[in-house]
């Protein structure tokens, strides 16, 4: 048979059009809606935590730049101490965010090992499977990160609004907040994809029989 199926022909004959893949991933999220919500929630939580720390950092910077003198002096007095605490908090929230999202993705994809094995039985190449999971996880990552950014920045905004009342409007760090939001969203998507690719790749690399057998 090696003679009668030239390699080029094979590559052409095994396909997964992108439109199909996109539909499949979207549907997969919709059908497993409950499960998808839980996974997305963990992305939301991780990113919201990170974003709340980042935006409170932004507010402090805003006060330092545009705030009234008396506040600046109080803040500057605590600056040294504050800096260390901020770094500590940001690294911690990053860590929580990464671990939370990766864990959720690992579980969600690993429990679909049987599905992956079945697709391989039907003639799917490893890369189709990885492609499907990249699409699915990036959609979840995008949705989760946007919601997370909104929640996180709202939370710290409310805290600073209560503390400084109307003063906050004068020193609103819009540019910095936007920068942090973009960073958080990109990070959220990247971590979701990485967290999903790894187990999808492991299952796709397995012999189909093993992937179907694999118990989670």
């Amino acid at each position, binding site marked *: 048979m090696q003679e009668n199926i030239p390699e080029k022909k*094979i590559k052409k004959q*095994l396909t997964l059009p992108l439109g199909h893949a996109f539909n499949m991933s979207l549907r997969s999220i919709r059908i497993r809606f409950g499960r998808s919500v839980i996974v997305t929630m963990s992305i939301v939580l991780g990113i919201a935590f990170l974003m709340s720390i980042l935006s409170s950092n932004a507010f402090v910077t805003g006060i330092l730049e545009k705030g009234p003198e008396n506040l600046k002096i109080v803040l500057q007095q605590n600056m040294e101490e504050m800096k260390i605490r901020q770094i500590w908090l940001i690294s911690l929230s990053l860590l929580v965010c990464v671990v939370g999202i990766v864990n959720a993705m690992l579980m969600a994809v690993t429990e679909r090992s049987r599905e992956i094995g079945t697709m391989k*039985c*039907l*003639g799917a190449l*490893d890369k189709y499977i990885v492609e499907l999971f990249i699409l699915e996880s990036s959609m979840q990552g995008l949705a989760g990160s946007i919601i997370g950014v909104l929640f996180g920045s709202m939370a710290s905004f409310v805290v600073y609004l209560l503390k400084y009342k109307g003063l906050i409007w004068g020193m609103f760090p819009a540019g910095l907040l936007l920068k942090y939001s973009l960073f958080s969203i990109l990070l959220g998507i990247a971590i979701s994809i990485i967290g999903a690719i790894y187990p999808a790749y492991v299952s796709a690399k397995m012999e189909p029989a*093993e992937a*179907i057998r694999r118990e989670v």
Partner: protein
Amino acid sequence: MPKEAIVRTIGLKKTFLLGKIPLHVLKGIDIEIYRGEYISIMGPSGSGKTTLFNMIGGLDKPTEGKVYIDEVDIAQLDAYELAWLRCRKIGYIFQTFNLIPVMTALENVMLPMIFGGMENEDAMNKAKSLLETVGLGERLHHKPFELSGGQQQRVAIARALANDPAIILADEPTGNLDLKTGKEIIHLLKEMNKNKEVSIITATHDLKMLDVSDRVIWIRDGMIERIEDRENLEIKVGEVEGEEAG
């Protein structure tokens, strides 16, 4: 007409490692299966049926020995060729149906054709006619969880036939079905075997299969115990049932 071997195994061995203890599941299996045959691989649980099934289907790699499908040693194939083989040459049916849960019956049947590069519309028409053949013309747009076990297995049969394979491999296709539904599935498989001239290989311990099989391969403890032609079978059914009861 000379018999043409579609599947051939030579000295097939498979060893699993349970921790550090090697477990010899298959201990050297030599079989030849001819084009158009209906074969049942029978044996008690743990005899190695499913493992043998996985080896023949290119779903797992043997520890030792060779599997030839259509005279091609499948160990020599690369990932593309193996995927092509699974897509075009072999249709799989599982005890647990293994339909893709997010897809409708129609889309499940279309999937192998889409992987195989068929145009969407052609794939849809073919999937429709296959589902009609298996008696599910009315349920094209149902999701697997909206179908009964028997109906899901029918979808799986239609999916297995999608790319007109030369072989259908069925691992305990009736294992999760009741007596009546199981019979219907067996007859459906036999019908496909006759009409489409596809070789059917089932791993099973369902005695209902004996009626339709051309040959029965008995496996015990990872070895072939005996191979029987259908003509010699009927006499032994009583004995077999005794064996099952014991």
